[in-house]
């Protein structure tokens, strides 16, 4: 397999090719082996500095990126918007350029506005990795979800994958749809219609509003949380009613007559989209996703950094 990505930034899955996906997954397999060694570090990025710029809250993604960077031996600086000069009115480009002036080679950015990573890639001279831009994309999550599914199901081509929950406010949904469709999966979205954006049908996915029918159809279900912090209108009567209609219980899973794989990008609202017994059941690969997240992010940063400026000979 050839060892170069077709892109210089990771802005979204929609900019990647099938070859890119295969290369990222293969490289992540090697990194997964490395992070299970007694000493989990490689010296590859010892001359690279990476800034994690998070304008939105994050636990898993930020920790996962930071750990991946440290496992690759990169120097890491962390920035979060709260308590920074952004509060004093500094613009995004100024903030990022000031960070880059400290000789930073790569920027991992999360922002509430869709398109910020693309905007930055056009206006600053650095390698940009999108760690989630509003309700647009969360490419590293899409990659790690597909990688985890491949580990469990083998080739994803022809497999039936459901994405269940708050699609309207989710960046994970879009990155998952792009990745799974590229890999040849059949994708079905399941949610109340008020939580499904209108354009979604144009992406070649099926839409269903019945949870039991969807679970009976699928080989795996990626369950997304209700993003209460983003919901401004009354899109459903109450969280309790949502949980009654769309919450996945272990008893529901056991009644399907087959074993399906359950994913969740976290954080889980236990008792809403998943009950505790379902989240902790043998169906769930939620902690595998977290482990794979580090390997996938190591692969992304390794492959991207191999593309930018070469050392003087």
């Amino acid at each position, binding site marked *: 397999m050839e060892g170069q990505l077709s892109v210089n930034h990771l802005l979204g899955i929609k900019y990647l090719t099938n070859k890119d996906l295969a290369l990222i997954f293969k490289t992540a397999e*090697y990194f997964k082996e490395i992070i299970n060694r007694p000493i989990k570090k490689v010296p590859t990025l010892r001359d690279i500095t990476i800034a994690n710029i998070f304008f939105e809250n994050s636990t898993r993604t930020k920790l996962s990126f930071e750990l991946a960077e440290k496992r690759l031996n990169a120097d890491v600086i962390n920035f979060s918007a709260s308590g920074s000069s952004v509060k004093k009115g500094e613009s995004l480009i100024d903030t990022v350029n000031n960070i880059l002036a400290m000789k930073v080679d790569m920027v991992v950015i999360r922002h509430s506005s869709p398109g910020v990573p693309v905007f930055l890639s056009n206006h600053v001279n650095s390698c940009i990795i999108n760690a989630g831009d509003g309700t647009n994309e969360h490419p590293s999550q899409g990659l790690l979800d597909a990688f985890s599914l491949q580990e469990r199901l083998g080739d994803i081509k022809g497999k039936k994958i459901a994405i269940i929950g708050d699609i309207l406010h989710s960046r994970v949904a879009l990155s998952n749809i792009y990745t799974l469709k590229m890999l040849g999966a059949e994708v079905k979205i399941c949610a109340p219609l008020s939580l499904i954006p209108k354009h979604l049908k144009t992406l070649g996915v099926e839409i269903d509003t019945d949870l039991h029918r969807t679970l009976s159809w699928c080989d795996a279900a990626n369950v997304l949380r209700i993003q209460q912090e983003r919901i401004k209108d009354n899109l459903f009567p109450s969280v309790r009613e949502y949980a009654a209609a769309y919450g996945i219980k272990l008893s529901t899973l056991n009644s399907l007559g087959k074993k399906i794989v359950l994913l969740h990008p976290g954080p889980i609202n236990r008792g809403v989209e998943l009950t505790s017994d379902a989240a902790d059941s043998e169906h769930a690969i939620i902690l595998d996703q977290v482990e794979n997240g580090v390997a996938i992010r190591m692969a992304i940063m390794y492959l991207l950094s191999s593309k930018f400026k070469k*050392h003087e000979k």
Partner: protein
Amino acid sequence: MKHKVLLDSQKIDIVLHRLACQLLEKHIDFSNTVLLGLQPRGVYLSHRIEKILKEKYGISSLLHGKLDITFFRDDFRRSDKIITAQETNLDFSIENKSVVLIDDVLFTGRSVRAALTAIDTFGRPKEVELLILIDRRFSRLFPIYPDYIGVHVDSIENNKVKVEWKENEQKDAVYLIE
């Protein structure tokens, strides 16, 4: 480009048997020894040595792994050549073991230096030895010397030494490319 045959398949066979005997002399029953082939081409050699030790000398249990050094190389972002990682397979502990690192050609010593760093991530071996089929002895840039040597080749830097294995290239042969 001129291809000069340094070793044909018969000579390679003799050299491999000699190397296996030298290993046997030192490691006897291989109970605390690990053979570790360096990806990609050292793996062919380590498999051959393992086969001889098992089939000719009755060594029944032998720890054997393969090691990829891609992420430990010191030429990352310094070379125009695209480096592609390969599988590492070392599913046993090397703690306090005698590790025999195996590669086909020893040139500058950079790969072996990277391999020594990579081995460290698996634990602390008792010792590490180096087995090489072709030692280009006047090209070394690091203080690295093999413990078991197939043959020495004295060549200028621009020459290349190519080792072909029948598993991959139909026949066993070592060429000097001038």
